[in-house]
C-alpha cells in the first residue's frame, strides 16, 4: 500500500451580486444607520426585507423604517467563534425581532456569557465604525436597557444618495485534497520519472492517468502497468493565448498542446510539446518526456527523432 498523498487546496470566490430595489434600499440604509423592512399585503413587516412575500409570493415594494432595537426570539451561545463570524470573542447567535417588525433577523449578540442572554431580552444594534452597505454594517447587537420603540414602523421611501447596487461577497474555503489510491500511486511513480497506468481486469484497457475505475466497465483498475516513457502525438492544437498562471509565464506563444498516447497505454494523456517549432508538430510524431530539475511531473514532451508512427497504430486513440 502506497503512502496517501494530500495537499492543501484553497477555493476562493468573490461573488459579485446585483441588488434589486428592496435589497439595495436595505443595505444602503444600514450604511446610513437606518433599518428598513418591507410591508406585506396583509400588513406584516418583514425584516430583513424580501422582494416577494414569503407566504404568497406577491411582489413587495412598500418600505418602512423599523427600530434599531428589538427583542431576542431565540439564541445560541457560541463559545468558540470561527473565521468570518461577526465577533472574535465568545458571543450569542440571536434572532432579533426589531421594534416594528414581524419577523426576525439573524446576527451576533455581544454578551458577557450565556447567563447574560435569554429569549425575550432587549437588544440594540451596535453599528460598525466603517459601513459599506452590507449586513456586516451591523457589527453586532448589544444588551439594551431602553424602552421598546414607539410609533414604528414609519413609511420610508428607501431613497438614499449614492445607493449600493452591488454586493461583493468574498468566500474562502480550505480543503485538504487527497487524490485517492490510484492517483496517489500515479503521482508517486511520476515523481520517480516513471509513468504508471492501471489495467481494467474486464476490458484489458490501460488507463493513464488512472482514476481507480474503468469508466467503460465500472470496475476497479487495480493492476499497475508501467507505460511510456515514449509516446505518439495523436492530435494537437496550437495555442495562441499567453498563459496567465505564474507557473506558465515563461511559455512563449504560439505553442502546441497535444494528446499523447504513451507506449502501452490505451488512453491518450495531454501535455505541451517543446523542442520543435510549433508548425512542425504533426499527428504520429514520436515524443518523450522532459523533466526539469526536481520536477514531480514532465515539464513537456519533445521529439525522439524516431520515424513517425503509422496511423493504424494509434487511430483508436485519437
Amino acid at each position, binding site marked *: 500500500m502506497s503512502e496517501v498523498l494530500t495537499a492543501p487546496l484553497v477555493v476562493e470566490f468573490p461573488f459579485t451580486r446585483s441588488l434589486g430595489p428592496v435589497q439595495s434600499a436595505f443595505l444602503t440604509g444600514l450604511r446610513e444607520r437606518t433599518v428598513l423592512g418591507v410591508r406585506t399585503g396583509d400588513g406584516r413587516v418583514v425584516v430583513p426585507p424580501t422582494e416577494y412575500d414569503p407566504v404568497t409570493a406577491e411582489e413587495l415594494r412598500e418600505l418602512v423604517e423599523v427600530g434599531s432595537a428589538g427583542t431576542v426570539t431565540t*439564541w*445560541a451561545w457560541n463559545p468558540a467563534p470561527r473565521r468570518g*463570524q461577526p465577533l472574535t470573542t465568545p458571543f450569542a447567535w440571536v434572532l432579533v425581532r426589531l421594534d416594528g417588525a414581524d419577523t426576525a433577523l439573524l446576527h451576533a449578540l455581544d454578551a458577557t456569557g450565556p447567563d447574560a442572554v435569554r429569549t425575550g431580552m432587549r437588544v440594540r444594534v451596535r453599528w460598525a465604525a466603517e459601513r459599506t452597505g452590507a449586513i456586516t454594517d451591523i457589527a453586532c447587537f448589544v444588551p439594551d436597557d431602553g424602552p421598546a420603540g414607539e410609533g414604528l414602523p414609519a413609511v420610508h421611501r428607501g431613497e438614499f444618495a449614492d445607493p449600493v447596487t452591488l454586493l461583493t461577497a468574498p468566500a474562502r474555503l480550505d480543503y485538504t485534497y*487527497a487524490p485517492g489510491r490510484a492517483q496517489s500511486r500515479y503521482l508517486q511513480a511520476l515523481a520517480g520519472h516513471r509513468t504508471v497506468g492501471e489495467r481494467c481486469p474486464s476490458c484489458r484497457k490501460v488507463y493513464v492517468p488512472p482514476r481507480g475505475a474503468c*469508466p467503460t466497465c*465500472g470496475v476497479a483498475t487495480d493492476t499497475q502497468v508501467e507505460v511510456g516513457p515514449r509516446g505518439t502525438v495523436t492530435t494537437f492544437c496550437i495555442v495562441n493565448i499567453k498563459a496567465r498562471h505564474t507557473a506558465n509565464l515563461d511559455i512563449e506563444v504560439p505553442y502546441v498542446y497535444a494528446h499523447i498516447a504513451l507506449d502501452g497505454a490505451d488512453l491518450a494523456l495531454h501535455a505541451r510539446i517543446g523542442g520543435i517549432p510549433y508548425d512542425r508538430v504533426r499527428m504520429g510524431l514520436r515524443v518523450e518526456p522532459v523533466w526539469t530539475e526536481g520536477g514531480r511531473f514532465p515539464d513537456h514532451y519533445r521529439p525522439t527523432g524516431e520515424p513517425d508512427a503509422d496511423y493504424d497504430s494509434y487511430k483508436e486513440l485519437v
Partner: protein
Amino acid sequence: MREVAIVAFGQSVHVRDSAEISEVEMLMPVLHDVLAQTGLAARDIDFTCSGSSDYLAGRAFSFTMALDGVGAWPPVSESHVEMDGAWALYEAWVKILTGEADTALVYAYGKSSPGDLREVLTRQLDPYYVAPLWPDSVALAALQAQALIDAKLTDERELAGIAARSRADAESNPHAQLRGALPAGEPLVAPLRSGDCPPIGDGAAAVVLAAGDTARRLAARPAWIRGLDHRIEAHSLGVRDLTDSPSTRLAAQRAGAFEGPHGLKGRGGVPTVDTAELHAPFTSQEVVLRRALGLDAADGTVRINPSGGALAANPVMATGLIRLGEAAARIHRGASDRALAHATSGPCLQQNLVAVLEGE
C-alpha cells in the same frame, strides 16, 4: 399508476476520514453490492441518478469522476442532482412512473473530510443577509433547539435521551460511524452538546428501483413506494416557526403517511406505519419531526430510527438516501410492513421529503 419499489440497498462503512480513497473508489463497492443483490449488470439499468455536492470536495464537476464507477459504455441515461440522493431517488421514481424506465440505479456520496463541513454548509445560505456572517450549521441548529426549549417542547434531558437511543440502536448497524454509549459532551454551540450533533464523516449509498413485475422478479419482498412528496419552506430563518415543520407534515400527508395501508382508513393525524427513518442530524430536529408527523401520538407503536439515524452516521448528501434505504431494507427482511422515510436538506429542516414504503 405504475408500481415502483426499492429492490436493493447498499451503503459503505461510514468513517471520519477516507483520505486513502477517492470518491469513485469509495462508491464502487457500494454500486457493485446493489447490482449483485439484484443480479443486474450496469447495462441492464435503464436510468442512473446521483446526488452529491461539489462544495464537499471543493472541486467542480466532481460527480462526473464518480460516474466512472457506474460504467458508461454502451452509453447510459444519467442525471445528477446537487442535493441529497433522496432527491435523486425522487427523480428516478418519476422517470419510472412516466414509463421511460423500468429500472433505476440511484446513488449518493459525500466526503466531508477534505474540508471544514461547518464552514462549507454556510455557502448554502442566503448570500445577501446571512452567509456574510458565516453562521455554521451547528449554530443554526442550536437556535432551533433553544426555540424548542423556550417553547417547553423539549429539554436537554430529552435531547440526551434521543442521542443515547440513536447510538444504542447503531450498535447493531455495522455501517454506523458512532455506536454505543457516548457522553453528552461539552456544549458545542449551546444548548447543543457534541452528543446532540451528528458525526462528520465520509460515505456512500445506493439503491435500485424497479417497476411492477420487474421488481417482483428482482427481490423476494420489494419495498413498494406508496407515496413520495417533497416540500420547501421560506429560506429566511426569521420568517419561519423553527419549532414546527409544516413542509414535512404536508409532504407526509401527500405521501399518504396518515392513510391506512391498502386503502384502509387511518386514524386522524397518526401515521399508519410501524417504522420511521427520520433524517434528523441534530437531536432537537427529531423532536420537530416527531411533532410534525404525529409520531408522539402513535403511543410508541412506531419504531423511530432503528438504524441509529443521522446521529450515528451522517455522510452529507447520502444521509437522506440512507433513510429511504434503511426503511426499505427493513421491509425487505420482514422487520417492517409499512415504513415512513424522511430526508431533509438546508438549514433547520428547510426542505423535506417523505416516502411511504410498504411490503406486500
